[in-house]
């Protein structure tokens, strides 16, 4: 599924020590100054980072693999993760509160903003080289090029917050949640049927091009504990871990796993530091963004899981010994990273989330915008794959 992580094999003890020290400091700081919830969110983020990195669970590479090679095991593992998340999340959204938290699903409207935004996101993820989660875990894993993508992802998100109110004035059917039209079991089964159909299509196309169907689980050739700590997880492990951690995020934060809201927030914080009066922008006057802007980043649940994710990937990368000793980023590749980052950031704001907030958590919440996002982001990815050679990317 492949976020193109070069392979070496020895544990990097210096980086591991530093990563663990940062994690312990962060957890201690949150526990003393904030609350157990903040502490737990950093741990959940850490788990997400380890899982994403060790399973190389990226959406971008697997979509590209399917478009170019008709290799569908990456897509099928995502479908499995989404299917599990539907089962683990949707039943809880019927209750108003859980463990003392008010809970809310990842809902978004069916409208022009989501169509355009998801298309731009899909295009951008192929140029940038990673999606919402993919950008974070590859940055944590030591990929310098993805730092460029992340910086411009943040800038694009900030621009998206400036323009989102205008985009929302365009035609929209509003939020459509399956839970409003059927009971939970029906919503689960209908979505499973659609996921199953897509999985069947990937198998059909893969069979047309290859003799054998690639599997999402192959028994590791090393001991379980070695693989668990040092990586090369089967995709199945990654899918199960991500679905479970998404559920834990819902339990602790009160909303499913989300990534890109924090990028807009980080951009707004930096812009404010530079003297831009972001607080006057309409988006930042809305309830949730306004509170987030006026509070510490460490009080934002999405930022905490993102920070934990980067640290988790950093530690996982140190354990696996993967990493490149040479930095080779051509001008064209940098331009693709810049353009891809901006498109993803801007698109994610318009589309009410990225591959995590809109696709993974949106569908798991029974929101139809998640399905709309899936279709148009995949279409955008198709064009993004075709554009990659123009930037010297294979």
């Amino acid at each position, binding site marked *: 599924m492949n976020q193109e992580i070069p392979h070496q094999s020895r544990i990097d003890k210096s980086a591991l020590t530093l990563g663990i020290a940062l994690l312990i400091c962060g957890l201690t700081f949150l526990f003393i100054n904030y609350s157990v919830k*903040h502490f737990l969110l950093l741990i959940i983020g850490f788990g997400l980072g380890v899982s994403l990195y060790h399973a190389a669970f990226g959406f971008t590479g697997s979509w590209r693999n399917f478009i170019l090679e008709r290799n569908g095991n990456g897509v099928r593992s995502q479908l499995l993760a989404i299917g599990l998340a539907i089962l683990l999340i949707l039943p809880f959204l019927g209750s108003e509160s859980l463990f003392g938290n008010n809970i809310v699903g990842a809902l978004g409207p069916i409208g022009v903003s989501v169509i355009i935004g998801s298309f731009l996101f899909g295009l951008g993820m192929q140029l940038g080289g990673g999606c919402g989660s993919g950008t974070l875990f590859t*940055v944590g*894993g*030591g990929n310098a090029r993805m730092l460029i993508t992340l910086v411009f992802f943040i800038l694009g998100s900030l621009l998206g917050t400036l323009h989102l109110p205008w985009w929302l004035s365009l035609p929209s059917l509003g939020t459509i949640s399956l839970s409003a039209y059927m009971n939970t079991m029906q919503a689960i089964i209908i979505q499973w049927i659609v996921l199953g159909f897509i999985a069947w299509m990937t198998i059909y196309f893969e069979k047309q091009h290859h003799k054998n169907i690639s599997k999402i689980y192959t028994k590791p050739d090393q001991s379980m504990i070695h693989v668990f700590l040092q990586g090369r997880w089967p995709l199945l492990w990654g899918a199960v871990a991500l679905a479970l951690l998404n559920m834990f995020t819902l339990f602790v934060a009160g909303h499913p796993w989300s990534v890109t809201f924090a990028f807009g927030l980080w951009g707004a914080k930096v812009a404010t530091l530079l003297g831009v009066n972001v607080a006057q922008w309409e988006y930042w006057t809305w*309830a949730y963004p306004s509170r987030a802007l006026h*509070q510490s980043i460490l*009080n934002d*649940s999405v930022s905490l899981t993102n*920070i934990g994710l980067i640290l988790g990937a950093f530690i996982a990368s140190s354990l696996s010994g993967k990493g490149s000793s040479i930095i080779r980023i051509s001008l064209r590749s940098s331009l693709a990273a810049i353009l891809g980052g901006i498109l993803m950031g801007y698109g994610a*704001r318009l589309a009410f989330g990225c591959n995590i907030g809109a696709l993974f958590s949106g569908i798991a919440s029974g929101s139809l915008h998640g399905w709309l996002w899936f279709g148009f982001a995949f279409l955008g990815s198709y064009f993004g794959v075709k554009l990659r050679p123009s930037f010297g990317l294979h």
Partner: protein
Amino acid sequence: MLRKQQNITIIFLLLFFLLLVLDHFHSKNHQGLQIKIQEHGEHEEGSSPCGM
């Protein structure tokens, strides 16, 4: 010995954590420390990070 790309990542992480610490104390000084994770009560625009 850390690898080159990891050095860049570490510099980024340290700068980012510095921003977090500055932001933490800036927020604390300006309005008191908020220790409650934002709650999400309604399914409406602007009420949650996912619905954004």
